[in-house]
């Protein structure tokens, strides 16, 4: 049960209602809208990450699910497992990312395996070794690698907010990526 009350959508300023109309009437937005001064700025991060063409949808969901799993973020998993399925990830692949840890046999591409390694090392150790960094940079280059870090950073940090508040998963509302 959420430890902080969720706001009424109708009582929000236009900028917040407009964002929720596009991205979904999610509990996470109704939670963060308690702090409207920072919500609107944060919503720009979400919009730019999901409007960017840098990663295909599937690669993005691999990174998000892995970060959510390593952070124990039940809420993020509840939203993104469904999205991951729609991007073509198989049940075996989703299980490998969020449960069994057996990623080698799940038929991931080389790029996806590099993403999984990077997110895992980063979330577990809070840094990257020279070798891991070089491997990721060889695949992505500077711009996409930095953007991947932005994506991981967004979900890693948000997980702390969601876990702290013990936010309830949404009954039916779904994030619109």
């Amino acid at each position, binding site marked *: 049960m959420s430890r902080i009350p969720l706001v009424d959508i109708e009582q929000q300023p236009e900028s917040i209602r407009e964002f929720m109309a596009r991205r979904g009437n999610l509990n996470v937005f109704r939670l963060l809208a308690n702090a409207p*001064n920072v919500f609107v700025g944060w919503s720009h991060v979400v919009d730019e990450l999901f409007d960017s063409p840098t990663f295909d949808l599937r690669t993005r969901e691999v990174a998000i699910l892995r970060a959510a799993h390593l952070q124990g973020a039940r809420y993020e998993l509840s939203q993104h497992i469904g999205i991951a399925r729609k991007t073509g990830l198989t049940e075996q692949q989703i299980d490998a990312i969020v449960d069994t840890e057996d990623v080698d046999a799940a038929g991931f591409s080389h790029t996806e395996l590099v993403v999984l390694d990077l997110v895992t090392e980063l979330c577990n150790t809070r840094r990257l070794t020279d070798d891991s960094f070089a491997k990721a940079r060889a695949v992505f280059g500077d711009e996409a690698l930095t953007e991947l870090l932005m994506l991981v950073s967004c979900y890693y940090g948000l997980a702390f*907010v969601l876990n702290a508040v013990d936010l309830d998963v949404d009954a039916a509302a779904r994030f619109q990526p």
Partner: protein
Amino acid sequence: MTRIAYREPKDMTEQARELTLARGNLNVYRTLANAEKVFTGWMLAGQAALTSPVLPLRLRELVVLRTAYLMDCPYELGQHRDVARTAGVSSDEVNAITSEADWRTDHFNSTELAVLQLTTELLTTRSVSDAVFDQAHRDLGSEATIEVLMVINRYSGLALMLNALDVDLDESARLPIPARKDRTDGLTS
């Protein structure tokens, strides 16, 4: 040594350049500007966080320093040891908060201790007990509690990026604290 090249302000969009220069043209921004499709939004979020008057500056800097310490992020610590001093955090207090357990002292008032307890528990266990959450929430109210959590969100995520890219601490440039319209009826630090 920073692992990728800095993006110079002259090579940024006008909005990204303005935001970067307004915040001291720091190495962190010139590094993250490599992600040009998402950098501006991230800077706007930072601007909103830095100018919101909801949290006392001192409390915000305590949360930033505690987060930087627990995330083992030398860049954030290097910047905010100095920034915190301008927000009324003494040198002894900076040292206390960037240590394992010395922060549990009488340097800090009860609200600050509740928030530091929440920050520490959250970053070390990824969750917070009922009692610790309730005390911080009771002291701060919902809006300021969410802002504290969003500070932890932002600086924990940023720590991952700074550590991954091994960004060098700026020689002397420090984050300028933008003017805010502080509340007079709000929380006391």
